């Protein structure tokens, strides 16, 4: 392969990877926020993403709503569901050993998946064409409108999130709770409410990702959340779990690496590559790319 064609393929894969990566980033944000605040890997998070996609689907097909209202409704519904799940399934177990909560999370995940299959059938659904898909050819590299929209919306959501976390009172409370829960309680912060907010925001972001994916790939099914959920977790760990910019970085990085592996090696090892990255990061820098090492105290 001569250099010009290699370079053009490389850039094309990069473009592919960044779109994929922004989706992972949106989901990873939810994981990282929840883990940062209550040290729980919410296995059901990938299924909230699926839920968001379905709500968006019903909003655009049965509700005949245009894109933005559908997106917002999906985010709101998912936020509510996320809060309900936290209330019913995770809060009672907050002082129990970690293994119990993890198993409950797995149970909730399975319930959402198979309950979904029961309700909406395992048949994949297709999104109606919500906005057109022009193709732009920039010096041999192909980018289409949907990819641009995904990138724009992801970046917009991330900017909003960063603003909320760093500049608002709620955000400050969230950071306080994730830093030291007991101290936060002593300072008068209603920890339960803050945790609910965290779940709400994380779930909303995942739902946004779900709707964007539904439009981009044009096909949704009840089991669509499993792999992206796991990969988003890898992305969160890669960037540094509990660190918000880390999730964004990890997501995009993972998307790019996946595209490169698919494009230059073989696409069947793509999933294995994602897990491989996880293992390597956990072994060599478990706090992630942007994280700092914290000694565990007795």
């Amino acid at each position, binding site marked *: *392969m001569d250099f010009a*064609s290699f370079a053009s*393929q490389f850039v*094309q*894969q990069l473009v*592919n*990877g960044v779109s*994929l990566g922004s989706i992972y980033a949106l989901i990873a944000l939810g994981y990282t926020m929840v883990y940062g605040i209550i040290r729980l890997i919410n296995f059901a998070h990938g299924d909230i993403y699926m839920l968001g996609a379905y709500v968006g689907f019903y909003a655009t097909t049965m509700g005949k709503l245009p894109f933005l209202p559908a997106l917002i409704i999906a985010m709101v519904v998912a936020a509510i569901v996320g809060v309900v799940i936290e209330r019913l399934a995770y809060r009672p177990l907050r002082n129990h050993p970690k293994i119990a909560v993890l198993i409950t999370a797995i149970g909730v995940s399975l319930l959402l998946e*198979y309950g979904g*299959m029961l309700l909406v*059938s*395992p*048949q*994949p659904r*297709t999104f109606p*064409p919500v906005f057109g*898909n022009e*193709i732009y*050819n920039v010096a041999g590299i*192909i980018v*289409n409108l949907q990819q641009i929209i995904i990138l724009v919306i992801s970046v917009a959501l991330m900017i909003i999130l960063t603003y909320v976390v760093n500049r608002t009172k709620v955000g400050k409370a969230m950071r306080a709770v994730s830093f030291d829960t007991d101290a936060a309680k002593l300072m008068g912060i209603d920890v339960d409410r803050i945790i609910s907010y965290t779940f709400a925001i994380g779930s909303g972001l995942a739902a946004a990702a779900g709707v964007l*994916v539904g439009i981009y*790939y*044009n*096909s949704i*099914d009840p*089991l*669509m959340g499993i*792999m992206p959920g796991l990969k988003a977790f890898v992305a969160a760990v890669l960037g540094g779990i509990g660190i918000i910019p880390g999730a964004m970085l990890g997501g995009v990085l993972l998307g790019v690496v*996946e*595209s*490169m*592996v*698919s*494009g*230059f090696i*073989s*696409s*069947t090892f*793509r*999933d294995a590559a994602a897990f491989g990255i996880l293992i390597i990061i956990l072994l060599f820098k478990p706090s992630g790319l942007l994280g700092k090492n914290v000694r565990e105290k007795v």
Partner: protein
Amino acid sequence: MKLRQWKKIASLVIASVMATAVLAGCGSQQGGTDTIRLGANLEMTGGNATFGGSAANGAKLAIKEVNSKGGVLGKQLSLVIADNRSEASEAANAMQKLATQDKVSAIIAPIASSSVMAGAQVNQDNKILAISPTASNPKVTVDPATGKVRDFIFRAAFIDPFQGSVMANFATKSLNAKTAALYIDNSSDYAKGLGQFFKETFVKNGGVIVSEEGYLQKDTDFKATLTKIKSKNPDVIFAPGYYQEVGMIIKQSRELGIMVPFLGGDGWDSAKLPEIAGAQALNNSFFSNHYSPDDNSAAVKNFVDAYKKEYGQTPDAFAALSYDATMMIVEAMKRANSADPVKIKDELAKTKDYAAVSGQITLNATHDAVKSAVIVEMKDGKQTFREKVNP
């Protein structure tokens, strides 16, 4: 203290639910002497749930129609569905249950070749036939260890070697393709089989395979590999997988500027394909199928209308083939004039020129369906007839 009581009640409830389930499992099935029971060992959950679900619908529709016309041999038919969870060992388990616990007269075998083979010994031991709507691996009906035909296993579809070569010949002769790329579903032995036979015939015809790539079921992003394929400039791309992934592949290919023809097999057949890919994207793509909806035959129209009425969707190939498999069992029962499993098996093996929804079916010596293939071209999101290929 109230919490303690709730805990006790909860544990009692869990315990009784489980006890009931155990008892239900232990209880033997009542066999009605006024109904003839058919079994269906299908993928109702798991990775292949969409296909198994369609097949179950097809079988149920067939039984409903037969029953509304008075049943068979004066008795009504009933269907017992056992879920094999898209997994080979569960398929054996389900086959065992249908054969020994539910005492059925014949069984609709799983969609996936590996699942049919896993349960094959059970059919042999209990002398109850299994006919798969779609399993296409040649080893399903011919035991590779002994080279002999499996007595009690049949299929309603043609096998991979035939389908693969049909498309290869079409590519070389009708599309004048000299180079081809293969993009195969590596998690499906059906797709791999088709790919292998396409390659053999294509190369025999003088063509060159410039790229062989794979994907896995449930993948959604194919752009990276498609970019790679694009750089190799093939004349055609053969993508013999299932419609969910193929739809996305074709859509993403067009978005990347890949405009060459796409070719595939009967796994493409679904009303969802143009929905997923977009009608325009599908132009210039062709696939081999058992029948064409352009076919204005009464059989096809009646089936499609009845299926739509019952289930609210257009039937796909899995539903059609399963419907045919069920009807073939019923016809065999009528010819044998008995519900005895062995007699049904003997008559089924003699099926000749049966006018099925999916074409004229004759079962040959290796229990495979011999029927013509139709090459379908997608035009503006509709399936149109292009060519017929006789075996």
